[in-house]
């Protein structure tokens, strides 16, 4: 399974493509493509959005409890933020919600 990610051009934030084709900063809302072909086709489309995001690419993901979880550690860190500064990155907002 795949999701599509990129960095937002204007501020560099890591973003994921959601099911409506919008770029969102919350990786849990990322669309999950069951087939590689489907993901590749979508990547082709969004690669033309050069004034919105930088270098979009597809990542391997699994689904746990209904939400997307990246397979590689690199992508998990992108989705949450630095493991050594849990007060920064998307994880900070999640912690604030949980608190």
């Amino acid at each position, binding site marked *: 399974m795949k999701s599509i990610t990129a960095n937002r*051009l204007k501020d*560099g934030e890591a973003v994921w493509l959601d099911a409506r084709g919008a770029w969102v900063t919350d990786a849990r809302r990322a669309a999950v493509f069951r087939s590689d072909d489907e993901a590749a086709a979508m990547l082709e489309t969004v690669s033309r959005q050069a004034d919105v995001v930088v270098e979009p690419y597809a990542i391997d993901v699994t689904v746990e409890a209904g939400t997307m979880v990246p397979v590689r550690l*690199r992508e998990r860190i*992108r989705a949450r933020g*630095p493991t050594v500064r849990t007060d920064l990155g998307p994880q900070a907002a999640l912690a604030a919600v949980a608190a």
Partner: protein
Amino acid sequence: MYVYDDFDAAFVKARVAQFRDQVNRRLSGELTEEQFKPLRLMNGVYLQLHGYMLRVAIPYGVLNSAQMRMLAHVARRYDRGYGHFTTRQNIQYNWPKLVEIPDLLDDLARVEMHAIQTSGNCIRNTTADPFAGAAADEFVDPRPYAEIIRQWSSLHPEFSFLPRKFKVAITGATVDRAAIKVHDIGLKALRGADGEVGFEVFVGGGQGRTPMIAKKVRDFLPEEDLLSYLEAILRVYNLHGRRDNKYKARIKILVHETGTEELKAEIEAEWERIREGALKLPKADVARIAAFFAPAGLAERPDAASKLATERASDAGFDAWVSRNVVAHKVEGYGIATISLKAVGEIPGDASAEQMEAVADLAERFGHDDIRVTHEQNLVLPHVGLDDLKAVYDALVEAGLASANAGLISDIIACPGLDYCALANTRSIPIATRIAERFADAERQRLIGDMKIKISGCINACGHHHVGHIGILGVEKKGQEFYQITLGGSAGDETSIGAVAGRGFSEDAVIDAVEGLVDFYLTERRDAGETFLQTYRRLGPEPFKGVLYGAQ
């Protein structure tokens, strides 16, 4: 320190305006990322995992307090409250927004700072002995020469598209605190028989995936020939460096493949052609630049040493800090104070905006407005009166910057690794913090003595692992983080490249492995004066491998 002239100031301002225009054209879609990327890199803007990263040049690691305050302002206004001081004596910001970077650069320009040539295949910031102008063992202050090299290399049209990046380091002291032999060019300033300045020249050192120690090509290059000789080296490299393979493109590979003697002959031939030309350094110009680095005008402090002795006797924490973090100054009554950015549990090299401001205040009040960044990711106040050290220390305690661990096992170099870096295989910061925590006991650290642990999250070796007494390199295996240990590396004097000990360890196991090595050293050392590195060199790798992997 050097002060911009009108040309410098106008140039930097114009460059920011140009970049602002480029950013606007990128945002409007007029420029593609492919077109924009080389432009942003020329201005120090990378794209990392969580966003853009901006690398700001700190020429030869020298800052005044106004500049340090500006770095704090940038951290607060444009970033998330902190910055990361690097082994290249620069600072990196991890979270700037592209749309705001032109404003950020305008702010930096107000204190004569910029991010030009902090990336790309050009001559990068020249690094220097962080104790320059202060060290008791110094023969020649390297800063004027570093500045001369900066002026020559900034936007040098011939050398803006080299086969690969190019790094020069310079020292002028007995002890090499600038790791000159692991740079593309290493310079050691010396005095000749009549007191004249010259340079010992080394070429072809480097780390990365193929670490090499630089080869000496000149015993004593006359001062006036510095730039023509550098130009000759760069020209030969630019012509013959391998552009076909980025892993073989550094000058170290050219030196290695061509042979030192043959390459040296080519350099000398080119040099003979140009040495009497425009690059000859007139004495007057050297003197004009050197005047910017005139000694700080340090007044005598006859009672300073005795006041210090009394204060040390009454405060054990202060005493420990002075013995580790303060070294002799060339002027009696003064010391060189290292401010450790390695508090246990903290990220090596990171400083908050508040900490930067605290250091700026101290430099202004007690340090002749002079601050240095070291390649070991610490800060230095190079000229502090011995009788002011207590006040400095107390303020550092307040700011969380008083760790008395300079050169000890918790004074670890670590690259950003997978927590930030897009090229990383593994994280490196958590390894550093966990090792520091494992050895948190200050008494135990002092017992172990001098120890350099250096950690990189991939083979690019930004964390200098090749020259760590214990080096740690992150490697990914089947999606898992593993850490390979190298032993016996050393930067500076008697430079050596560490040897890989064997297969990698998991994150947990590598912490235990380091502890095992240290405990073994403690039982084997001849006496408390023999350092880990000396014991390793005496015993050889086998017994240490035995500790890691059991008897083979």
